[in-house]
């Protein structure tokens, strides 16, 4: 993309969108949001970055192969289910703990791990499609 303004703004826009996507992911349990929507926002962010600065830059920025990210997500989601088996309750039963971090009670759960897995799968799978299309599209 030739536009200088777009290229200058894109990194900031992308960072903001990725940040926002994580925010949407985390608040999802109580407010509109969640892993799926968050993942889609992050993919759009990466797609914008790719259009602005080239696919190579995006690939360097996310470091891992997108499919590896998706694989890690699927793995995390499965582990979230398997933890319940280790705790001798049926597969996929939500388990919660409330550790105290710096005097603040933080609710953590296998459900949250699962949602993060969904987020990663969506980010990885869809961005890998989008990136490979962008990459070859210009040939």
């Amino acid at each position, binding site marked *: 993309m030739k536009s200088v303004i777009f290229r200058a703004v894109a990194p900031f826009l992308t960072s903001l969108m990725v940040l926002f996507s994580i925010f949407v992911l985390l608040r*999802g*349990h*109580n*407010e*509109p*949001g*969640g*892993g*799926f*929507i968050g993942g*889609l*926002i992050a*993919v*759009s962010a990466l*797609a914008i970055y790719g*259009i602005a600065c080239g696919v190579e830059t995006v690939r360097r920025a996310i470091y891992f192969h997108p*499919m590896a990210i*998706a*694989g890690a*997500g*699927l793995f995390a*989601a*499965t582990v979230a*289910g398997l933890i319940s088996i280790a705790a001798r309750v049926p*597969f*996929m039963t*939500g388990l*919660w703990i409330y550790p105290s971090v710096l005097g603040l009670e933080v*609710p953590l*759960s296998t*459900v949250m791990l*699962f*949602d993060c*897995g*969904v987020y990663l*799968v*969506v980010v*990885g*799978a*869809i961005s*890998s*499609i*989008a990136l*490979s*299309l*962008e990459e*070859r*599209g*210009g040939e």
Partner: protein
Amino acid sequence: MDVAALTFLALALPFVGALVAPLLTRLLGHNAAWVLALFPAAIVLHFARFWPDVAKGEVVTGGYAWIPSFNVSFSWLIDGLSLTFVLLIAGIGMLIVLYSGGYLKGHPQQGRFFSFILMFMGSMLGLVVSDSFLMLFVFWELTSITSFLLIGFDHSREAARRAALQALIVTGGGGLFLLAGLLIIWNVSGVTQLSLLMAFGTEMRESPFYLAALILVLGGAFTKSAQFPFHFWLPNAMEAPTPVSAYLHSATMVKAGVYLLMRLNPVLGGTPEWQILLPLFGGATLVIGAALACRQTDLKLMLAYTTMASLGLLVMLTGLGFPHAIEAAALYLVAHSLFKGALFMVAGIVDHETGARDVTRLGGLRSAMPLTFVIALAAAFSMGGLFPFFGFIAKEEIYYALSGFDRRSVVFAAIAILGNALMFAVAFAVALKPFIGAKVETPKAAHEAPVLLWLGPALLAAKGLSAALLSGLTHELVSTPMASAISGEPRAVTMSVVPHVGVPLAMSTATALIGIVFYLKLDRLRGFIAAILADIGWGPDRGFDQLIRGLVRFSVGLTRRLQSGRLDVYMTATFILVAFVLLVVPLTYGELPRAPFFAPDVPLHELAIMAIAVIGLVAVVLAPDRLTAIVSLGIQGFAVAVIFLLYGAPDLAFTQFMIETLSVVVLALVMTRLRLSPSDHRPLAQKVPDFAIALACGLGFGLMLLKTTGVPFDATLTEFFNLYSKSIAHGANVVNVIIVDFRGTDTLGEIAVVMVTGLAILSLVRLRAGSLRRIADNDPDAEERA
């Protein structure tokens, strides 16, 4: 640990060995065989503890629940039959591990080989001790799969790959017959365990499904045990390294079919069908196998065909229903495992040390390989049924069982004598011909084999002698419990090694004399059989190739017809079907919705948004070029998302926004890749039907939506989720809680689909036009032309 846990451990042990084998081989080289042989040794030791009880005629069962809701368990049944098999499998397996240590010394993939052999051993052990049907089937197919790996071990050779695939298709396919047969037996008897099934013999035999069950079970057993006409895979399996041939294709796996028949004999046996089908196929296999063995000159192939003949003899004996036929089958099975295993290993030694295994190009090896010669002779004596080896006792018992004077006995006695005489000739052609006569120059200078190679066959040959000399003990520990287990009632085996004058001995002598004549005239016999085969000119092996070729040709033709490779054809077909389902089904059944009801006071902003959606649609249709059409489609999508937002579904709206954005981006990217012309140039003759299909689909969806929203809404689930979302799932956003918690397993499946779809699209995108493999590449006709 209790016995059950130890037995489970013993059954798992070969697989553990398979895991560590590659590492051990990397550390110790071929000497890893000494360590790996400890695994089967431990199994032998463990199962030997059941010996005293089993010899008394007891049946040991045990196991764990596996899928209790389907009454499926992981359970074992140890009686005279399975214990004999276990000891043969683990005992010979131990010798084979040692033998392959020497045979594949220095082979870069020796670790992998050990791994496969041990995996096979574990599958075979599981098969013979299985009590539950499902476990039997699983291990049955596992032996097919591991045998596929072993036959195709030398995978760089095409012949090995073909043989492996052939064995897998024939025996694995037969396994499916077995599964169907077992399911019928389960349905008729209502039990899922062999040990419980024994009480249902009468019900089974009188059931109208008896014949179907019998034929299906025989389909499994005959393919596995290489009965004519399914025998062709067995000689081809000789492409495997010799330890595999010695172990799988003589001593153990091919006996699985015989094992199954013996195991089911008390349940399915004794009927006229059983007593016709088994002796018929067994007898045919015996004679054809023995004759084909004489035709061969390759040591391994000669032995392979005699194995087929021996399996035929076993099936025949199992089915005859004569008194003492079962005892004869039990004795011959043990004798065969011992001598055939030894002879195969001898053939391997000759091949390994001289570089040749064609019997016409070998001779005079006795001075270079005296020990191998002695081992070979001992095994051949047993195979020929000569005094004082175990084969002699088995043969006496066979002839004792067949020495009646009715027509059936005489026919089968003649078949047995002919088959045995031919096998006698082959046994000595393998064990005598290469060692006597003038010395023939071989590719490698012949010398005696190292200890790892001769130890196994020597022990097996010695076992064949000692088992005969201590026949009282052998019968007490092995033959009697085994025969009793097969027949389902106590049977005592008493045949002693001391020859008794009588009809059986006369038949034995006749067999040996005819065998000697065959041996002396072997070259002429070979030419004779070859001429007959040339006249027939077709065999099941060719038939298999024709079948596979025909199958491939059929699927290529079908694929060509169904898959034109043109996206517009697929889309048209799909949408016509959709329109058909959506319109024709409601019209036929009179399920059209009532006219929609419009609220009188729709707020202005909602009307405006709907208008935007409609404008987006009109823009799509009228757009001058494709890019504008895609973006206009986005307008419509956003308008719908806003409607979702207005009606209280923020999550849905949110997702819809993102999906619309991304689909516009992705569609635009795809368009640039496809290098289409910027605008649409369909001729009118195509535009009109496309428009009609689109209209029909749209109309159909509209009607369906009206209909579904017209149905009174059932709020049970909504109430449930609203009630419990916060209280038990700790989340206020019901939609998210449903996705990640209430229906989390669904979501797990969905994200797996997302991932797989991503992988598929990625590989499609990466395919360059040049590397596109067309369907034609799999076309057998094209291969022939090339």
